[in-house]
């Protein structure tokens, strides 16, 4: 049994990673010392040059850890710590698009995008 244990564990590991890839909602297993920018350099640069980069609101704030509480597409709760009023407005939105911060805000620059005018929150979410 002792000799089989590593094989079983490795198998479990591979199976787990395959499930990760299939589900696409979990992050692939990466070494603990690996920095996000090593695979996501483009996104990291956009983030770093934006306001949230300047304020060091790092990847984990929205995406969680790669091994715990990972979110490929962050939910509203991730923004609530600093933007509680805006999140409440979004929660009350009547259409599906309005229930995500990223409908109006670029994913990593987090600036208003496209036709977003910036008046949505100023008007109390109307």
């Amino acid at each position, binding site marked *: 049994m002792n000799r089989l244990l590593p094989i079983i564990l490795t198998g*479990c590991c591979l199976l787990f990673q395959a499930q990760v890839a299939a589900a696409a909602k979990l992050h692939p297993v990466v070494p603990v010392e690996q920095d996000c920018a090593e695979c996501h350099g483009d996104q990291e640069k956009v983030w770093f040059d934006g306001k949230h980069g300047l304020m060091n609101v790092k990847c984990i704030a929205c995406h969680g*850890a790669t091994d715990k509480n990972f979110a490929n597409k962050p939910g509203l709760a991730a923004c609530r*710590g*600093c933007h*509680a*009023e805006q999140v409440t407005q979004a929660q009350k939105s009547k259409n599906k698009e309005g229930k995500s911060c990223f409908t109006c805000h670029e994913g990593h620059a987090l600036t208003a995008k496209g036709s977003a005018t910036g008046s949505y929150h100023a008007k109390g979410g109307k």
Partner: protein
Amino acid sequence: MKMTRRELMKYSAALAAASAIGLDLPMPKGVLAAAAGEPDKWVKGVCRYCGAGCGVYTGVKGGKVVAVKGDKDNWNKGFLCLKGNFLPAIHYAPDRLQYPLLRRGDKFVRISWDEAMQVMVDKFHDAIRKNGPDGVAFYGSGQAYTEESYFINKLFKGGLGTNNIDGNPRLCMASAAVGYVSTFGKDEPMGAYDDINHADCFFIIGSNMAEAHPVIFRLVNERKQKGKDVKIIMADPRKTLSARIADLHMSFTPGTDLAILNAMAHVIVKEKLYDKAFVDKHTIFKTMTDPGPPPKIKKVVWDDYVKFLNDYTPEAAEKISGCPAAEIVKAARWFASSKATMSFWCMGLNQRTRGVWVNNLVHNLHLLTGQICRPGATSFSLTGQPNACGGVRDGGLLSHLLPYGRLVANAAHRAEMEQFWGLPAGRIKPKPGLTAMEMFKSVNNGTTRCLWVACTNPGQSLPNVDPYRKGMAGEDTFLVVSETYHPTKTSELADLVLPAALWVEKDGTYGQSERRYQYVEKAIEPPDEARPDLTVMIDFARRLFAAMGRTEEAKKLFPYKTSEDVWNEIRLCSKGTAYDFMGMTRARMKKAHGLQWPCPTENHPGTVRRYTSEYDVLVKQADPKAEGVLFYSAKADNNRVSIWLRPHKGPAEPPDAEYPFALTTGRQIEHWHTGTMTLKVPELKRSAPDAYLEINPRDAARVGVKNKEKVKVTSRRGSIILEAKVVDVPRDGLVFVPMHYPERMINSLTTDAFDALSKQPEFKICAVKLEKV
């Protein structure tokens, strides 16, 4: 769900093993991972981490903390930093201590609270009988609530008659405190965060505020973006993330900033950029003729100061510091000429053998130029812990202090406190007690027989920590540790470990950097058998006094049932002092988003800026005719504050041929102090998992080490192997290591040399050598 310690250890081991191969075990319900979902209620409080004191609402669902959000009505405008955003998880770490533990040989065994208190009382009583009250000591924290620190101070200094009570702010803020007292006569900043909105020039020295005080950094950046021609000067041997918003980054050899600050004063005087009217009206000049102890101080005059500054031309300072003379001149001109200049500093100045002197030199610049006591013009020390100011500096939980600006060595102050506490005359000893490093040396030599450590982790946070760890682990001293988690690097050395309630599991008052006091409301129950430290302290005091046959005295001294009872006594204790917060009733504090002292009456709005009649009601109380600035804090010098002649002196252990690099330690945004809380948060641990050695590419090439390769770092006290992080942040000859990680304690290498005036150790500079592994 309850787990035994054995079950918990098994689970943790399984979790680690599974994690190593990529498996993700489910968290045991009720132990790990805060429940998701919308909170049932939001409870108002203050962040648990740094001294910025951000207002926070805690979201509670089903008796658990499930979310936090910033308080938009507080100074932080609803913003939190990266680690503040993840506060809920600190309550549900797998190593929460559930019940009291007593050491039996190499193991800890579970005991009841009743047994724990009895053992503790027996040990303390025995030590006091055999060695007198100075045979026991308490080591506290800038994280305890004000009510806890005040109570334990009263128990030790007033009840037991020993001044052997000190705390971790000695490692953190002591030089800032002594700096304010020696310059202004009283501790604590006169300004506020609101000054950020009015400043046109920021002078930031010895502070990486982007990581250590991120929400204050956010306000500075906001001012920079909105203000026209706002200048930011950043003086730091590392080009940190904070320097991203700087107009001028002044790099210099670690420990040479005294020369730079004197050279800035030289430029200000030579170019007649000083405010002569302000200097003439409000200042005197002092120098130290003999370091003592006690130090001998001599009053001198303006001409002596000018002569003193003659040695500090920008060119001379460049030779000493490596900072270009042109940058020193530019910084001096910006500082003096802006409409309003605000200085910030933190551990880079405080954790130094000349910490007090370098604090004095920053104040000098403000006094010379009159850049003080106006909106945007102020000299502002940043604070490391959430209640170092409120509980320790103000409340007097240091071995030389009594509450609210009173001193142990001052007979009138002792008499005041003896009368206030209802003690017999002479109960409070006239000699200051052991300071932090002296206290742990006394553990090493066995003269302290019982030591109670609460809400802090000296087994990791002391400089040159290894010899002190041996002392704490030894059998000469009975070590009691009140802790939320176990094991920590201190609780693992204890004889008795007491489980402590954490943050919103209890209520109390925090006081932060800008004199803002805030009430933290209890939101949830503590887990298992954990108790608030105040409850434990009161229980211990009553039992100890009963054992000593002083039950009736204990009834008078410790009549409290709630933290509000203690708070009301504290308010009375502050009455009539420079700290007066009689107006901060508990009912008012529950509604307010913090109030700034002095706040002497219930209809007083609190004081944004001190020492100026426009804002500070105490100015007119001190002198009804006073208009504008009055430094009533410096009553002994006729309301004149001190410009000090402080010569340059380098660190205790500069680099040399054998140890050619300077090592400095510091913070990362993800973690706080010794990581007992933040390293339990999966997201924060994933983002910053381990210690590293930060080295610039030029030095890395010289050592022959590449990014992510292992390097052995050795000081005269110890060695550690770390992964190299090769980035162009530290200047040549300087390396940096974060101080958060228990598995790789950089404090095994740091020096325990300390400032003669503040007794604060020089964590920030020691000499090391590097070898590729």
